[in-house]
């Protein structure tokens, strides 16, 4: 997973992205997810806090005309990031996964802590047996991090 994530950032954005230790609570504002179905069945999720999601969008598209990119573009960016990470991960699984398919990305805006806690059918909270990795892609962003979660279905 680390290689798949790093590949996206190094290739598309020419910047490093490394796994880091989680040292504080994490409250995502966006969650993008893709389902892998077939011989391998899993769900890949990418979760970002708002400010980091906006910065990622600017990294892909350049500065916005206004104060920040709108949430439609931010959500689209995260969907594409999740798509590339899931695709890179699937590619590296090799033959057992080659016949599996990726879904189109589904992106959720997480409005409240309550929504995070109870899942509300949209945002999936922490799950047992999930692979959960935190990443940082720009040292200028201090403690800002995003999560990649992989759950076997």
């Amino acid at each position: 997973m680390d290689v798949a994530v790093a590949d996206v950032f190094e290739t598309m954005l020419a910047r490093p992205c490394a796994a880091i230790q989680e040292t504080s609570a994490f409250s995502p504002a966006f969650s993008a997810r893709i389902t892998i179905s077939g011989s391998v069945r899993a769900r890949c999720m990418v979760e970002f806090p708002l400010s980091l999601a906006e910065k990622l969008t600017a990294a892909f598209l350049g500065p916005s005309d206004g104060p920040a990119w709108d949430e439609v573009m931010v959500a689209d960016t995260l969907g594409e990031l999740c798509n590339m990470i899931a695709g890179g991960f699937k590619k590296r699984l090799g033959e057992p996964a080659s016949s599996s398919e990726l879904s189109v990305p589904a992106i959720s805006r997480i409005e409240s802590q309550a929504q995070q806690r109870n899942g509300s059918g949209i945002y999936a909270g922490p799950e047992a047996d999930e692979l959960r990795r935190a990443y940082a892609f720009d040292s200028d962003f201090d403690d800002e991090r995003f999560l990649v979660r992989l759950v076997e279905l």
Partner: protein
Amino acid sequence: MDLREYSRGESMNVLIVDDSSVMRRVIEGVLRGAGLKLTEVLQAGNGKEALAVLEKMIAQGKSADLILCDIHMPVMDGVGFLSERKRRALSPHAAVIMITADPSDPLLIEAAAEGGLGYIAKPFTSEQLRTRILSLLRDTAEGGGAFLAGPASSVRQTTGGAPSTR
């Protein structure tokens, strides 16, 4: 368009087909930064919109020389677009490159059967996209039907075979 025409100084009309507006912008930026000779770069959000763009171009006496097309899109996906484009003979000589985050996507085989000349896997650099485009233009000039894996592989396979992976 083939490599001979491009080498003689012809520039390309390009159509980018992807349901992600972010990816369309990124690809256009990569194209413009890759040093390719471009006349016009048009965009469409799905296969149906792309067909409408091609029809409009034809009405204006133009055609697409290069089409970069996502596979999975709402309304009409990449394979459906290629099939309908072929049926209606819209820009039939355009070089078509599929764009995918999943090099083992089974739909790449169907895309090859419907006229896709190759694919490029996301993520890709500007240089990788440029190399892919020029190699396909060369293949078009040589009358080839090879469905090329991308972005950096030199392996070639005949049309209809499974796309190779890195």
